[in-house]
Every structure is written in structure tokens, then in C-alpha cells.
């Protein structure tokens, strides 16, 4: 505090509150290698309770929405938790698709006890393989050939018998029955030879007439004989079919006997095997005679097409009793969720069958747990609706996007839906949860349990110990060196800094894990056996270094006075505000000059940022609040006759937030009173209508931003930053800043009220209204009020003069 500061002004904050230090000696271990890893939910009591409830209740719609900021480690912790739960649950059934021989476009879904699906597929494939050999053998057998020949000969004989009778009758009547290319001819005959045309012409009329009559009669007989031929052939074919069935049944029953025995306990499989047998027996001859299929489907062997008898294993849960499954689908497209029906293009046509049905995440997770990222599900066309339908209807219907949007109308498969019963866990941020609650009426009914993951936890002894165990788990999972106690302490301080709160720890573990991995890299490079504080610090600094090009350029521009920011002297209507610039994972503070100008006017406070549309809504709100404060606090009985302008100088990229409103008020008060403000101080804080200074964000970055500038120009010992008292608890400043404060070359002041800020910035007392309702003489507030009253009086005087002039003009005109 300088000598010109009034006694009522706050003093600089003690060094102890500028950074919360974790004393490595307070940690009860040497390295994290000694600790049992913590794999649960650290600092997430509320979320843990919700998850325990959501996973234990077996009711429809009690699925979970786990919300929170990404990087809190909720996904991994949740997966570990669910895996433990799943291991205790009974293993879910396997699911297969088989052909429905009555309706091939509607494959049947069958459920089998765990591990039996693969066995069925293997045994079925083996049976079909057997059949490929045994079926031709049966049809090549002497017994088959003999019986087939008997049928053929029976037909031949019957056919020949009929023609023989007719031929004999014709012969008796001197008519020849001759075969031609196309059929039969009946011609007159004499002496066993067909009569030549010239001979026939020489016959008498009576002879020719008799021949004609005989041929006409025989025509009718021939026709009836020919009519019998197809019937005889049909009888032959029927007998052959019966013969084929009889022989095929032998081979088929032999081939299927092992499968039948193995699955005799499953009626649905037995029923399917019956259907397979019937179809095989019925089509055995075609199967043997089928050409080697040139347009083969994947997996189809060369030879008879036996695909329709095979088994499509959709879900197989292994053969060991490992409980239910936890499935995480990272790419929840519609087909990846509900499964898909693949097609093969052949000769310009798309073909498919039940073996080309592929399972989705819902199939795989059936009976267990399914983890999905809410945003990804919502981004995928039709995926959200399909997921909801599965949860609402309790069954998985395979549908394609093309069908969903009616893009194609080709005949495809319509597989029997599979019953669905799994606990679905959606992970997403809070905005998505609240939007879904608001906009999707189905959502609350199917995701009844919300688990809200916090990003921070109190920096308490228990939590510190558990944090260290969490780091131990991280080190083991990621194969990192163990952290020694100084490394843990440094990580804890980093976590506190990330939480922007000296009393809390950030539990967003992704950035912590990134830092730990980089620290491990540096420790190994240094040949250390454990990660120590210097490795963590090096990692922190290196990470900042990689990202701070913009900060460096900004600092350079300020030092070269391209960006104008004073760090010494006093100026009227000019103050150093503090801004935070965020660049992805990295943010830094940057001082910004704020200026105010006033003149006589009509009470309008012009926020140039807003007028130029560079100011955000929160910033405009802050300016309006300070306008309200000005109007209410000073000269309340006088009309406001002030015109003021406020601006963030050299700001071209937009300003938002109300954290500069205290600075803006101070600049405005300076401009009104013409009392200069110290330029070696910077200020941040949001003002309310009563002049109280309220908490802001990014306090550490803001202080460090002004410190860096002052350090570049040379620390004077008077420089410092004014922050809201409410933000003191958030201080986790860089050690360099703390050291400067300890040395008295830099100062941090906490303020509760704008009066304290003005006293520090001007060196004059702010003053409070006395019993007479007036601010004391010589105080800043008295100066403000007097100046505002003077503006008001001047305005009233100007008003009277104007009115008088108008009245005079009126009289002149009347005259």
C-alpha cells in the first residue's frame, strides 16, 4: 500500500492466500506404488448413488443418463463399475437367425443358452458337410439305381405296350404307324410297306376310301394313346420323387442325428431341425443336380447350395460362465446399433439372405449393459429413434436408413425381432440432458435415472488420499512411473488450479492424465525412478509453451506500445481492466485499457462496445447495472444530465462478461470527478447496483496477465491487481507471482465495494453519506455528486433559456 492510500483502503493480501500449497510431507506415502489403486468414482457421491440405483432397479425405463463435463473419467469408472456388476449377473442367452422355410424373407430368431449357438452352427456345418458326401452316395448306390431303373422300365414298358397295341391294330388294317421328327404319321400300307404316292393314286376309289376310314379311326386311337403318355410320365415322376424322398431321408437323418442328439433339450432347435429335414428331403434331388453356383454368396462352398440350412450366430457369449456383457458402441450409427442386412451385388441385382444379417450393439449388449455417447447417437440419422423404439417396445427391429426414408422399395429380409433387455447408459453433457428433457417427450420415460458427475471436489484430507490412489491406478493402467509425494502434491496443486479454486480439486481426469503422461516422459528422460514435482512442473510449462504463441505476440505488442496499457502514473477516465483469452485448452490473462468520457447530456450512458456490436449481452448488462448504480447513488433528487461513453480501447474481437463493470465504473467516476486513477493497478470484478464487487472467473489468469506485463517493464513495488474478495478463495497463482508478492514487488488487493477500489486507485477517501445526507467534503463521492448536480443545474438553466427564447419567438410571431 502506498503512502497516499487512505487508511480505510484495504491492504495487500497476505502471501499465504495467494496459492494453496500441498505439503508433500503431509502425504502418508513415499510413492504411489505403495497405494492401492482407486478404481471407483472419486468425489462423485451423488452420481455414484444414482448409478447404483439405476443399475440395480430392474424396471422398464430405468435407464441411465450420465451427465457431466467430458474428461471427468466417468466413462472409464462407469465401465469398470458395470463390468463388476455384469460379472455377477447370469450370462445372457445366445441368439441365432435361421431360415424360415415357409417364409424365407422372414428369418427366425432363436434363443439358446449361453455358448450353445456356436456349437449348433459348428455341428450344423459338419452335418451339411457330411450330407454333401452321403447324399450323392445314396443316389449312386446300386439299390437306388436298381429301383430307379425299375421305375423307368415300368414306364417304358407301359408306353411301348400302348404303342405296340396300336401299331398291331394299324398293321391289321394295313395302316403304318411311323415316327417322324415331330410325332407320328399314319399312312396306308401294303405288304408291310408304306404305299408310294403313285401306287396309292392307282388304287380304286373304294380302296382309298377304306384306307382313309381306317386312318381316321386310328387317329382317334392314337390321340387317346398319346393322351395317356403324359399321365404315365407324371406317374413315373411321382414314383421317382417318392423314391428320392425315401433315399434322401436316410442320408439326411444320418447327417442330422448328432445335432439332434446334442440339442434334444431345446424344443425350438428340434423344431427347426424338423423343418431342415423336411426341406432337405424334399429338395435332395435338386441339391445334387444343382449346378456349381457361379454367383456364390460369401462363405458358400462350391457345389450344392446348402446355405439355407446353415445357422447365423448373431450373439455368442462364449462358453465360460463370465456373466453379462458391457458393450460400448463408439460409432452408434443406425446399423451399428440395431444391426444390418448386408447385400451382395450380382449381375446388377442386390441379393441377400438370413446369413447376411449382422448384429448391432443392441444385440451384443442384450442382457447386459450398453454404453453410448448421447451426442453421437443424436448426430446419427435415425439412430436415436431406433434406440428409443428398442427400449420402448423391448425388441430389436433391424431397419435400414434407406427403408427408414423410403429410398428403396426392393424386396429385402424382414427378420423376426429379437427381444431386447439391457440397461442402456447414455453419456452426455448437461445441456443435452436438459434439451432432451424439454424437447423429447419420450426421453423422461425411458431414461428415468440421471447421474450428474461433478467436475470438482473439496480439497480435504480424505480426498487428497483418494486422489493419490487414483493417480496410483492411472500409473498402473497407463504403465507410468509411480509418483513420489512431491509429484502427487504438484499434481494436486495443478488440479486445484484447474478447478480455479484453492479449496477444490478438479476431477476432470483427462487433462490430469495428459499431464501425468508428459511428466512420466520427462521423468524417464531424466532417468528418474519416480515422477517428481519438477517433472510435473516441466510438463506444465512445456504444455503452456506449446500453446502460448498468441500470448507472447500480445505481450510483445503491449511492450512495443502497439497495444496501449500504462503500468505507471495516473490518468483521468482511464483504467486497466483485465480480460481472459481462451484458446482451446489454454487461456491467459491480458490487460486492457478502459476509458470513459463525460459531458453534459440527457442521462445517456453510451457503451461503445454495445453500439459497435462488439460487446456481448453480459457485458451490456454490466454497463446497464453501473448506469443504474450511478443514477441511484448520486444526486438522487436531480435529473441525470450526463452523457458518457465507455470503451475497451483497442478491442477488435468482441468483449463479453461483466467482470470489467467495476473497472468501467471507476473510469466513469474518474471522468466525472476528473480525479486521475493509478495506472500501476489493474482491476477486475463485477459490480451490482449497490456498488458491491462480485466474483468473476479466471482470476488467476487475469492477475498473472498483468503481472507478466509489469514484470516485463520492471516491477516497481506499487503495481498490483484489485480482485473481488469472493475470489480470494480461488487464488492458485503461479509461484513466480507469489514470490513477487512475498518480496513486496507486486500486490494483490481484495475489494468488496467500489469505494474501496476508488480509494486504492485515487488515494483519496471515498466517503459515506453523513447524517445530513451528504458525502463528506473532499471525498470522491462528494465530488461525483457535486459534479452531477452541477450538470443538472446547467441543464435546467439551459432549459429555461431555451424556453424563454421560444416564448419570445412566439410573441414576435403573434405581433
Amino acid at each position: 500500500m502506498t503512502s497516499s492510500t487512505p487508511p480505510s483502503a484495504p491492504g495487500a493480501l497476505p502471501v499465504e492466500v495467494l496459492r494453496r500449497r500441498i505439503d508433500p510431507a503431509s502425504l502418508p506415502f513415499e510413492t504411489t506404488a505403495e497405494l492401492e489403486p482407486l478404481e471407483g468414482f472419486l468425489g462423485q457421491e451423488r452420481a455414484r448413488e444414482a448409478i447404483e440405483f439405476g443399475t440395480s432397479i430392474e424396471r422398464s425405463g430405468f435407464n441411465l443418463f450420465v451427465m457431466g463435463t467430458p474428461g471427468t473419467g466417468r466413462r472409464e469408472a462407469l465401465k469398470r463399475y458395470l463390468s463388476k456388476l455384469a460379472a455377477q449377473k447370469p450370462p445372457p442367452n445366445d441368439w441365432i437367425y435361421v431360415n424360415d422355410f415357409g417364409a424365407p424373407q422372414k428369418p427366425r430368431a432363436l434363443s439358446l443358452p449361453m455358448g450353445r449357438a456356436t456349437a449348433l452352427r459348428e455341428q450344423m456345418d459338419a452335418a451339411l458337410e457330411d450330407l454333401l458326401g452321403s447324399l450323392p452316395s445314396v443316389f449312386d448306390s446300386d439299390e437306388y439305381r436298381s429301383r430307379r431303373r425299375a421305375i423307368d422300365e415300368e414306364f417304358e414298358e407301359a408306353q411301348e405296350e400302348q404303342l405296340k397295341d396300336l401299331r398291331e391294330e394299324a398293321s391289321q388294317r394295313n395302316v403304318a404307324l411311323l415316327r417322324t421328327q415331330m410325332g407320328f404319321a399314319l399312312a396306308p400300307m401294303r405288304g408291310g410297306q408304306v404305299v408310294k404316292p403313285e401306287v396309292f393314286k392307282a388304287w380304286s376309289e373304294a380302296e382309298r376310301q377304306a384306307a382313309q376310314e381306317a386312318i381316321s379311326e386310328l387317329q382317334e386311337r392314337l390321340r387317346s394313346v398319346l393322351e395317356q403318355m403324359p399321365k404315365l410320365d407324371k406317374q413315373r415322376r411321382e414314383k421317382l420323387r417318392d423314391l428320392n424322398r425315401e433315399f434322401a431321408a436316410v442320408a439326411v437323418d444320418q447327417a442330422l442325428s448328432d445335432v439332434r442328439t446334442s440339442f434334444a433339450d431345446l424344443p425350438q432347435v428340434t423344431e427347426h431341425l424338423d423343418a431342415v429335414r423336411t426341406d432337405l428331403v424334399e429338395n435332395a434331388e435338386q441339391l445334387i443336380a444343382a449346378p456349381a453356383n457361379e454367383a456364390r454368396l460369401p462363405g458358400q462352398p462350391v457345389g450344392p447350395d446348402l446355405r439355407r440350412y446353415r445357422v447365423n450366430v448373431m450373439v455368442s457369449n462364449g462358453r465360460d460362465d463370465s456373466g453379462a456383457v458391457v458393450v460400448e458402441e463408439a460409432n452408434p450409427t443406425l446399423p451399428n446399433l440395431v444391426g444390418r442386412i448386408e447385400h451382395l451385388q450380382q449381375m446388377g441385382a442386390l441379393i441377400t439372405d438370413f446369413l447376411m444379417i449382422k448384429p448391432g450393439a443392441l444385440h451384443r449388449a442384450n442382457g447386459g449393459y450398453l454404453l453410448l455417447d448421447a451426442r453421437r447417437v443424436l448426430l446419427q440419422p435415425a439412430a436415436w429413434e431406433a434406440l428409443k423404439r428398442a427400449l420402448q417396445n423391448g425388441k430389436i427391429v433391424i431397419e435400414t436408413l434407406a427403408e427408414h426414408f423410403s429410398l428403396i422399395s426392393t424386396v429385402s429380409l424382414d427378420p423376426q425381432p429379437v427381444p431386447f433387455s439391457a440397461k442402456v447408459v447414455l453419456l452426455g453433457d448437461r445441456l443435452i440432458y436438459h434439451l432432451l428433457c424439454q424437447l423429447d417427450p419420450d426421453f423422461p420415460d425411458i431414461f428415468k435415472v440421471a447421474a450428474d458427475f461433478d467436475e470438482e471436489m473439496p480439497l480435504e484430507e480424505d480426498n487428497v488420499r483418494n486422489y493419490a490412489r487414483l493417480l496410483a491406478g492411472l500409473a498402473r493402467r497407463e504403465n507410468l512411473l509411480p509418483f513420489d509425494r512431491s509429484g502427487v502434491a504438484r499434481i494436486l496443486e495443478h488440479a486445484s488450479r484447474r478447478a480455479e479454486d484453492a479449496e477444490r480439486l478438479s476431477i476432470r481426469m483427462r487433462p490430469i492424465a495428459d499431464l501425468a503422461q508428459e511428466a512420466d516422459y520427462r521423468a524417464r528422460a531424466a532417468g528418474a525412478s519416480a515422477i517428481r514435482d519438477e517433472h510435473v512442473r516441466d510438463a506444465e510449462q512445456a504444455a503452456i509453451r506449446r500453446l502460448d504463441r498468441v500470448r507472447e505476440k500480445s505481450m510483445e505488442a503491449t511492450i512495443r506500445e502497439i497495444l496501449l496499457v500504462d503500468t505507471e502514473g495516473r490518468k483521468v477516465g482511464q483504467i486497466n481492466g483485465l480480460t481472459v483469452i481462451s484458446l482451446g485448452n489454454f487461456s491467459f490473462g491480458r490487460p486492457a485499457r478502459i476509458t470513459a468520457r463525460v459531458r453534459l447530456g440527457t442521462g445517456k450512458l453510451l457503451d461503445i462496445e454495445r453500439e459497435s456490436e462488439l460487446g456481448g449481452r453480459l457485458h451490456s448488462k454490466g454497463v446497464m447495472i453501473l448506469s443504474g448504480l450511478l443514477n441511484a447513488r448520486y444526486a438522487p433528487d436531480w435529473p441525470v444530465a450526463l452523457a458518457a461513453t465507455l470503451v475497451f480501447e483497442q478491442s477488435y474481437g468482441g468483449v463479453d462478461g461483466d467482470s470489467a463493470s467495476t473497472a468501467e465504473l471507476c473510469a466513469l467516476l474518474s471522468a466525472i470527478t476528473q480525479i486521475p486513477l493509478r495506472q500501476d493497478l489493474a482491476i477486475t470484478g463485477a459490480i451490482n447496483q449497490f456498488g458491491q464487487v462480485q466474483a468473476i472467473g479466471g482470476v488467476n489468469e487475469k492477475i498473472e496477465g498483468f503481472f507478466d506485463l509489469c514484470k516485463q517493464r520492471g516491477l516497481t513495488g506499487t503495481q498490483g491487481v484489485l480482485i473481488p474478495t469472493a475470489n480470494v478463495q480461488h487464488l492458485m497463482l503461479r509461484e513466480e507471482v507469489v514470490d513477487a508478492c512475498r518480496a513486496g514487488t507486486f500486490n494483490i488487493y481484495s475489494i468488496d465495494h467500489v469505494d474501496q477500489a476508488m480509494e486504492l486507485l485515487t488515494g483519496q477517501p471515498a466517503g459515506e453519506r453523513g447524517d445530513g445526507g451528504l458525502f463528506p467534503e473532499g471525498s470522491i463521492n462528494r465530488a461525483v455528486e457535486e459534479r452531477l448536480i452541477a450538470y443538472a443545474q446547467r441543464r435546467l438553466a439551459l432549459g429555461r433559456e431555451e424556453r424563454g427564447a421560444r416564448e419570445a419567438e412566439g410573441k414576435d410571431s403573434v405581433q
Partner: protein
Amino acid sequence: MTDAALFWHPRRLLLTLLEDADCTLACAQTLALARAFEAEVTGILVEETSIHELAALTVCTHVGAVTGRFQQLDATRLAAQAERRAALLRQQVEALEAELGRRVAFRVLQGGAVDSLREAKPHDLIFYTGSFSRLEDPEQVAALLEAARQSSGLLLQPPRQQWQEGPVIALYRTAEVAERLLPVLQRLSGAAEIEQHLVGDTSEALTLGSLLATQRHARLLVVELDDRQADEKWYRALRQGMRRLNCPLLLINPHQQ
């Protein structure tokens, strides 16, 4: 392989084409066979006079074998058809000559469907092609089998059947013949597999062979003729076999070699 190494080697192909034969297919296959055996080729188009004579008989009635429909035969139309067919076949024989690079004897024979078979010599392979509805006539089947017995063999080509991609299936009575005929089959099979079976007699070979060849989509069915006189059992086996066959049948007569 030299010609002398072949156990069965026809020196001439007697291409017998009935009026309803697929001439283009027959010429293509004749070309392949002639090259395989470096054989001469003699082509005979059989113009069946009986149908023309019947057509001239005004009282004669013709009945369709399938439809049972009666119709009068038109002698003029039949004559014109025969003329066109002969002209077309002459062109194809000329093309065959050009491909082979040597003369192909060709003539039209007026007579019965099997009259051309009488010209077969012992070293001839008869390539008989046309509608097999004629095989329903026992006399014609007998004549075909007899001609096969008097020559090196008989190749029966079902109409409108391209050679398929399946194996060559051969059925013999003895392992010795199988072994000696293998080089012949290799010439005939190209890249196709060869499947050989031993059977008791020709009629059994015809029955089993036709079943196998149909199931396997055979490229060619080869059956060794035994030296016994063909009987009714043979005839039936050949008729039944040809009804279901979808590949050519080559009846090999090793006894004439």
C-alpha cells in the same frame, strides 16, 4: 503324345446331320474332335425322304407327339425347308474346311435317318446329331448301336447343348481299358477333370453314366461298348439315358481298333 500311343484312335469323323440338327454346334465340335485326333471329316446331311413321301400321300395324317394335334403335311414347304437347310450347312462346312485347313467331304443323302450309318468304316467315329425323338423308334436305336459296334464308336450330341464345364465321366468294364483309354480322355477333356468308373455291362454303364453325368453337369459321358450283341435292354438304357442327358454321349468301341 504321338498318335501311335493312342489305344483308341478314330481316323475319320463321319458327321451325320439330321435335318433338325444344330449344325453350328455340330461343326464346332467336329472341328475340336478332328483336331484332337487329326482325323479326316466327312459330312452327310440326311434328307429324310419318308416324310416327303408321306406328305405326298394325301390320305396320310400327322399327329404331334406332345400336343396330339392332327395336321396335314405340306410337301412343298418341307421341300423348301430341306433346301434351305442344305444351303446353310454347305456354308458351315466350307467354314469348317477353312478352319481345319483341309477338305471336308460333304454330300446330301436322301433316305432314312440311319441310312448314313451304313457308310461307317471300322476306323470311323460316327458323330450322329439330331432330335432324339427318333430314339423312341426301337429300329433306329438298334441301327445306331449296331453302327457303333461296326465302327470305332458313336458320338451322340443332344441338340442345343453346349459342352459344359463339369468333368468327363467315363465308364468301362475293365481297369485295363480304363488305363489305356486315359490318354484319349485327356485329349478330349481339355482342362476338365476325368472321373472313371468300372461297370458290368453297357446297359448298366448307360444307366449309371446318364445319372452321374446329369448330376455332375458332365462335359462328356464316355461309355465302353462291350462286344456282345445289342439287345432290348441296351436300347432301353440308351433311350432312357438320352432322355435325361445334358451332355454328349461317346460310345467307344475299342474292339475295332
